[in-house]
């Protein structure tokens, strides 16, 4: 089963995204910030990252930059999901290494369809 790592400091957001991801047959893991996410990525393999921007300890931009610089992790696709809807925020996300940018709150069908594409199908 393909695995998605949900990185967000908001517990209800993690639960909501987990529900969407599991509904389409993927396994979800959670991390509350970039540091915790990197630790989990050292132990387990993931097929996709869902990443918030504003988080304590390590924000989403810095986390994605770290991922993209690590030869073992750099090819994992990432969707950045932020409350910030400005063009500059989106540009900054792509610059940090995001493959897709979504603005919160995300409609379930939109999230599920993008997730499905980026993991290359759920089977």
């Amino acid at each position, binding site marked *: 089963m393909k695995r998605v790592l949900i990185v967000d400091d908001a517990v*209800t957001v993690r639960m909501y995204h987990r529900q969407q991801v599991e509904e389409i047959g993927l396994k979800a893991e959670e991390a509350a910030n970039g540091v915790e996410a990197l630790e989990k990525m050292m132990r387990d393999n993931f097929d996709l990252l869902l990443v918030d921007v*504003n988080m304590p300890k390590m924000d989403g931009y810095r986390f994605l930059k770290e991922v993209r610089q690590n030869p073992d992790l750099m090819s994992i696709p990432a969707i950045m999901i932020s409350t910030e809807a400005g063009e500059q925020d989106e540009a900054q996300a792509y610059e940090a290494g995001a493959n897709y940018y979504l603005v919160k*709150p*995300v409609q379930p069908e939109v999230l599920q369809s993008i997730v499905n594409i980026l993991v290359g199908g759920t089977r």
Partner: protein
Amino acid sequence: MALKKARDIQKSKPKEERRSLKRNFQGLINQLNDPDIQIRRWAARELAGFEQAVEPLCRRLQKEQVLSVQESILNSLLTIGGEEVVKNLIPFLRSDDAGLRNKVIEVLQALPEAVAPYIEKLLRDPDSDVRIFAVDILQVLPHAQVPEWLLQVIRTDDHVNVVAAALDRLAEVGTPEMIPALLEVKQRFANEPYIAFAVDTVIERTKSEA
């Protein structure tokens, strides 16, 4: 408390030594702009002993790009503490640098009594991002008024993500008396599945806590 400590040290020293402390202070302020990272970091750390260092430290923070120096500055500001620090850090909530913004939020969270008088104004800021950061400050703020502030947000704020941030915090501090206000939010944002999900989660948690 470090704030008192700096003042007490200076008062208790003989005149000559006080002058040298003053020179030392100015020297440290100058070193905050040194091209050498180690010197900037050391100066930032040493300035934790001077309450009058708040403004110069915040001025340096505006242009400082090196994470370890940023951290030293913020640690010193946290040590100094008090309203002056809060007043000078609040403008950083509008910074484009997400990392810096989040670190500033962490410092403000650690100064609950000093930040409390500013929360209501921040929660009424015209910029929804600033209102979200104000709710973020409340995420781990150990202050008795937190539930009341959050209730005010879910009742009055029209921005879905400001309300969403407040709901997330209420998942931890919500009480059964808040259920009518929570159900109202669900109605106000009837087209947002996330809000419905978050409200249901908060209600479920408040019931299980009760």
